[in-house]
């Protein structure tokens, strides 16, 4: 189960079942002998944001997967749509293959396409995602862009159960750049953080959970300077309303 490593990705794709019995006995060609292939769609965030300087955003952060325990294909999608400007401030899609590397962690690799308003970027992605001790959902990714710039993103989430339906989730997302990409306003060093607190209620199973929350976004260092130079802000507070959705 956990013996698979990244190098086994290709193997897992072609792994044949091994018939061993004599030909006169029935061979198990039933679905049971196949690896269970499943799919799922989840939107961790699907929300409307209203900032302290009256900016309105439509924001989502979701993923869809298809695959087996050993190998999953995953599509991650993130976006921030400025309602007034009718423009995507952020639009990011990742296509990934994911495979277990330990009991609680998966390695993932793939490509990321950023196509917001302004210059586009394509990145190669290498990452780890899983459950750390004490129930922290963590996700770490390393990106190399088509411009040759490298950056890393770290994401952690923790859920506090007030009841089995009323749940406070705290999320932290931090980006670090190892080189400057001036064109897209990224400076070297700590780029930005996004911290969110969302209080949700599981209304329909775990497939529809409306929430209210606050989100704090901040840019740092050179990235903050670039933003200021272009007349943008470096820090935002948002009130958010939305729903966690899965099906």
């Amino acid at each position, binding site marked *: *189960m*956990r013996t698979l490593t990244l190098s086994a990705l290709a193997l897992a794709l072609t792994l044949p*079942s*091994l018939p*061993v*019995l004599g030909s*006169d*006995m*029935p*061979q*198990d*060609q*039933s*679905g*049971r*002998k*196949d*690896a*269970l292939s*499943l*799919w*799922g769609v*989840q939107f961790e965030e699907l929300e409307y944001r209203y900032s302290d300087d009256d900016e309105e955003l439509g924001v989502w952060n979701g993923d869809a997967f298809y695959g087996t*325990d050993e190998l999953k294909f995953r599509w991650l999608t993130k976006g921030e749509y400025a309602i007034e400007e009718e423009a995507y401030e952020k639009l990011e899609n990742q296509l990934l293959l994911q495979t*277990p590397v*330990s*009991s*609680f*962690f998966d390695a993932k690799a793939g490509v990321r396409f950023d196509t917001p308003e302004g210059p586009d970027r394509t990145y190669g992605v290498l990452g780890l995602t899983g*459950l750390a*001790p*004490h*129930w922290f959902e963590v996700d770490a990714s390393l990106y190399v862009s088509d411009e040759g710039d490298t950056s890393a993103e770290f994401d952690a989430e923790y859920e*506090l*159960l*007030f*009841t*089995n*339906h009323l749940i406070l989730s705290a999320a932290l997302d931090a980006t670090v750049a190892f080189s400057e990409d001036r064109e897209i306003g990224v400076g070297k060093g700590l780029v930005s953080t996004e911290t969110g607190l969302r209080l949700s209620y599981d209304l329909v*199973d*775990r497939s529809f959970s409306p929430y209210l929350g606050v989100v704090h976004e901040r840019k740092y260092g050179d990235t903050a300077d670039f933003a200021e130079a272009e007349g943008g802000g470096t820090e935002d507070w948002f009130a958010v309303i939305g729903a966690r959705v*899965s099906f």
Partner: protein
Amino acid sequence: MKNALMAGALGLLMPVMAAAGEYSLTVDRVMIDTGDFVKEGIGYNGASPGPVLRFKEGESVTINVTNNLDEPTSIHWHGLILPFEQDGVPGISFEGIQPGETFTYEFPIVQSGTYWFHSHSGFQEPNGAYGAIVIEPEGREPFRYDRDYVVQLTDKHPHDANRVMRNLKMMPDYYNRQQQTVGDFFADISKHGFMTALQDRLAWGDMRMMKADVEDVQGFTGLINGKGPEQNWTGVFEPGERIRLRFINSSAMAYFDIRIPGLEMTVVQADGNNVQPVTVDEFRIGVAETYDVIVRPKTAEAYTIFAESMGRSGYARATLAPEEGMQGPVPELREAPLLTMADMGGMHGMADGDMATRAGAEDMDHGNMSQGSMEQASMNGSSGMAADAGTSMAGMDHSGMDHGAMIMAEGGASDPFYAEGSGLVPVAANGGKFLSYSDLRAQKPLYEEREPTREIELRLTGNMERYTWSIDGVKYEDAEPLKLQYGERVRFKFVNETMMTHPMHLHGMWSILDVGAGEWNPVKHTVSVQPGTTVYMETEVDAPGQWAFHCHLSYHAASGMFRKVVVEGGPDQGNTAGVEVANDGGDA
């Protein structure tokens, strides 16, 4: 034709069983109304559960199964000893029954008792494809009763089983609404103090395990004979009668704790085999197990059959009453149990992420521990056995587990088939006797007692967070078949390294559960292995062919806790010529 003639002859001999011998079942899409919700599902002869099939020991049965679904189906005769081609497991016994096809099962009935049947294809069984089998013995029963009822339980879920599986894979705690909350943390603080409460949380958090992880799939409605708690299935009796209740747990996932307030129950049979009578106030029935009990209500009042799920997230309810429409009081659900570190005993490796480590499992090895005192007591019948066995366990060494200040189970109840200090040990609601495996003694040994020819250790493994389940860390899809030799007596050692209970079911051959009673060990078809424990069973390998062996929790079996068992050697079975085999057996 030969069979039809034989059925005719049997019919003449036994007027009551006029139709005995030939049966027809259709597999249909049906609507299942639980009283809480209506859900499309699968049933037999237009209903779920299907009919009660009543066979007679010694007859040869012909069962025509017509598949009216738009997908393949199958029927497995759970607990019946028969040629492997008749066992009904697609890919192992036969090719399955295609849509529109009628498949004819033919096999001799070589046993008696309470059993059941269900589809072995996909998730048809949790979706409703199950029914009961009652086999009348050739000889006299060793106990008396005036009437009998099948009491077949299930845990009907509003979600289609495929969706349940998908949700569990996506979020293993999808259906768990008993998780520890902030409020529980403060309750623990006021009860045990801040440091203990905190350490307890940290210990569980470090393992990424939940002590509330007793029932994976909650949100079901418990049904008895297809009726929800509000619909209240009722069995009618006359005061003073002895009633035999044939309990069958056909659930996908739920264990039930069953009691009938106001009545003692005398357990006379387990998994179709008679046991020495033991009177209890309550018993736990694992998934796929059967227990036959005799009750004797003396007054003309309504008695509630109350079946709480082990995790207390749901219940089934029925009534025994002098007439339809009467109701007894329905008890409240008791508090949900919580796992303790003792239940994690088999999981030492987990914190390191090493699933293969099994250090510590030996500590729990009660099969060996109990030999001494249990064997001495075995001839005295069953009374007091649980207590004896419990004492003999006192020396178990848990020192390696470093529980420190962890919060352990309260009440101090013990049962040798649960880890010492387990949070799952059941206690009777009225403080009386709760049945333990260690109370079970075969009424009559089925096999001569002999030394096992070899031991096979099977570790029950899994990863809750990924919802993968396996045996020896290998899922069915990646596994070689388990090979047995015809004529050997295999001692199986089940080491449960997970925190879930697994009802292990071997097809085609009996599972002689080691309760330390030697030749009086009970003979079962499904053996529950509690978290952090080791359980032994022995099997006389007397059935050639290939068989299924798996955890009977639907979503555990489907995610890999499943094996094919191949019995090599033995009388020539003519392989796929199942009809011939059945006829030969029938004549024998």
